[in-house]
């Protein structure tokens, strides 16, 4: 076994690598592909064989609305992450290594902190007895608005949870931008704003695309935060799938929605892959 590991490249034939892969491939077949296949199967067999569940998806305005809402939310979250993440990544790229490291530490810490923790933190922040409501009341907004269980609260929390992905994607691109290019542009007489717009922005675009794709994709399938913080009228797909199961045990309808969600994610990935190559996305 171990000699196989080491002598690998010299070994002839395709059998040995497959032997090494076998346990994992078998495992993934049994515990990844089969359950996934079961979802696909349930979507056309529960409660009866046919495309009824999918037909229902298209005929009932509820599902269409939830899907549209999910896409718009994901788009909005990706946009907010970009708008907020960009200045931070820029700051990191322009700062001294020490400051950049410190900021990266913060981003990393946020990234690693369980999103349940971060969701809960937003409940505290936006709650009726929380600091933000108190601040609004202090500023004369009386009675202060309810912030929890609205589109605002779930969007804010999702932006907060996903912004590390954006910052990391942007930063990894920005730190590779050669400062000499910017100096050259400046020495040719360009003003700071046009240097930024015509040189820096295009050069950092790959990071923007990477980050936005990641955030958008993750947001599409978000379950926990919208369920805990969001408004009942603005459910997202994952939450509705959960309700279908938890309230009605309607595996067929839930599976059909899951398949559409999966397909949407795959489309985003494929489009990205065609244009940029998937390897870059995984970082």
């Amino acid at each position, binding site marked *: 076994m171990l000699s196989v590991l080491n002598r690998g490249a010299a070994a002839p034939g395709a059998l040995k690598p497959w032997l090494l892969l076998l346990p994992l491939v078998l495992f*993934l077949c049994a515990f990844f592909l089969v359950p996934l296949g079961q979802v696909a199967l349930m979507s056309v067999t529960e409660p009866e064989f046919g495309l009824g569940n999918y037909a229902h998806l298209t005929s009932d305005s509820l599902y269409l609305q939830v899907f549209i809402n999910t896409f718009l939310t994901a788009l909005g979250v990706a946009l907010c992450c970009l708008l*907020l993440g960009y200045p931070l990544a820029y*700051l990191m790229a322009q700062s001294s290594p020490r400051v950049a490291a410190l*900021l990266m530490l913060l981003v990393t810490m946020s*990234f690693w902190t369980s999103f349940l923790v*971060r969701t809960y933190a937003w409940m505290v922040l936006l709650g009726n007895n929380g600091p933000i409501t108190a601040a609004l009341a202090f500023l004369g907004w009386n009675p202060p608005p309810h912030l929890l269980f609205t589109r605002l609260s779930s969007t804010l929390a999702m932006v907060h949870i996903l912004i590390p992905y954006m910052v990391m994607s942007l930063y990894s691109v920005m730190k590779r931008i050669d400062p000499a290019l910017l100096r050259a542009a400046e020495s040719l007489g360009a003003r700071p704003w046009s240097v930024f717009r015509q040189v820096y922005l295009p050069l950092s675009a790959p990071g923007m695309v990477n980050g936005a794709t990641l955030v958008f994709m*993750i947001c599409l399938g978000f379950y926990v935060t919208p369920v805990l913080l969001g408004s009942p009228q603005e459910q997202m797909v994952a939450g509705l799938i959960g309700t279908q199961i938890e309230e009605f045990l309607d595996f067929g309808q839930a599976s059909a929605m899951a398949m559409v969600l999966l397909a949407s994610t795959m489309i985003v990935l494929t489009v990205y892959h065609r244009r940029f190559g998937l390897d870059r996305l995984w970082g």
Partner: protein
Amino acid sequence: MKLLPKLLGVLVAAFIAAPLFIVVPMSFSTAPSLEFPPPGYWLGYYAAYFTDERWTQPTINSLIIAFGTMALTMLLVTPATFAVVRHRFFGRGLANLMLTMPMAMPHIVLAIGYYSYLGDLRLTQTHLGVIIAHTALSVPVAFLILSANLKGFDRNLERAAMSLGATPLRTFWHVTLPVLRPGFAISALFAFIQSFDETVVAIFISGRESETLPRKMFESIRMQADPVISVVSTLLFAAVALVILAPVVWKAVRKRPNRDCARGGTPAAKDAAPQDVNPCAPSRVQLEA
């Protein structure tokens, strides 16, 4: 002109930091519910967390499941990574795709699948069931990190050892493994955390006996915003801070230049490890949450 974006950057940093730190004072608060600033301070909810079986049991469950996931993941992923990185063979692209695919799945989709499939196998509500599901989800992360490390491995080291008469086994044990140890460690750590943090699948398949901490937290937040959640949050946040800061501090003490981010590992290993693998960078996509 340059000041404005920087100021914005600082504001965003504050936006990221505030929610992380707010859970700390909350955990010492006497308030029976969500209230900030806290009306008073005590350690009562810490006592409640450590003595209430309804919190300690999920914590123990989560640890069991995360350790199990880590072990199973590494056991499966290690040989597979060697195969994919060191061999050229028919079907390699397919294998590569299969190993990274679980990463791109929205967790809710898999949650339905596991709920019904593991239910048929009578594995829902068992530790084993959750370990199996979490292992499938951890494979891509572990694989990507390990393969990046393995790609950067200088095979001349092995050749040198072999030419000096070492058997393949001794070479692996005394050369390959020590050099790759940080890669293994980080890979295993990621598998552990992936499992320890996973919520959505656990909500659906971990029942009474194998309830995980994230599931307990989720139910608790949904039911009543139990103040004990802020204690758990603080402890989790502290654990993260510790894991990230410890190597930084350690490095600073040893007067080595600071890196962008924490990376555990021996100095010798650092030269062997590929430069483009930053364990804290988003080298992973998890469509969980």
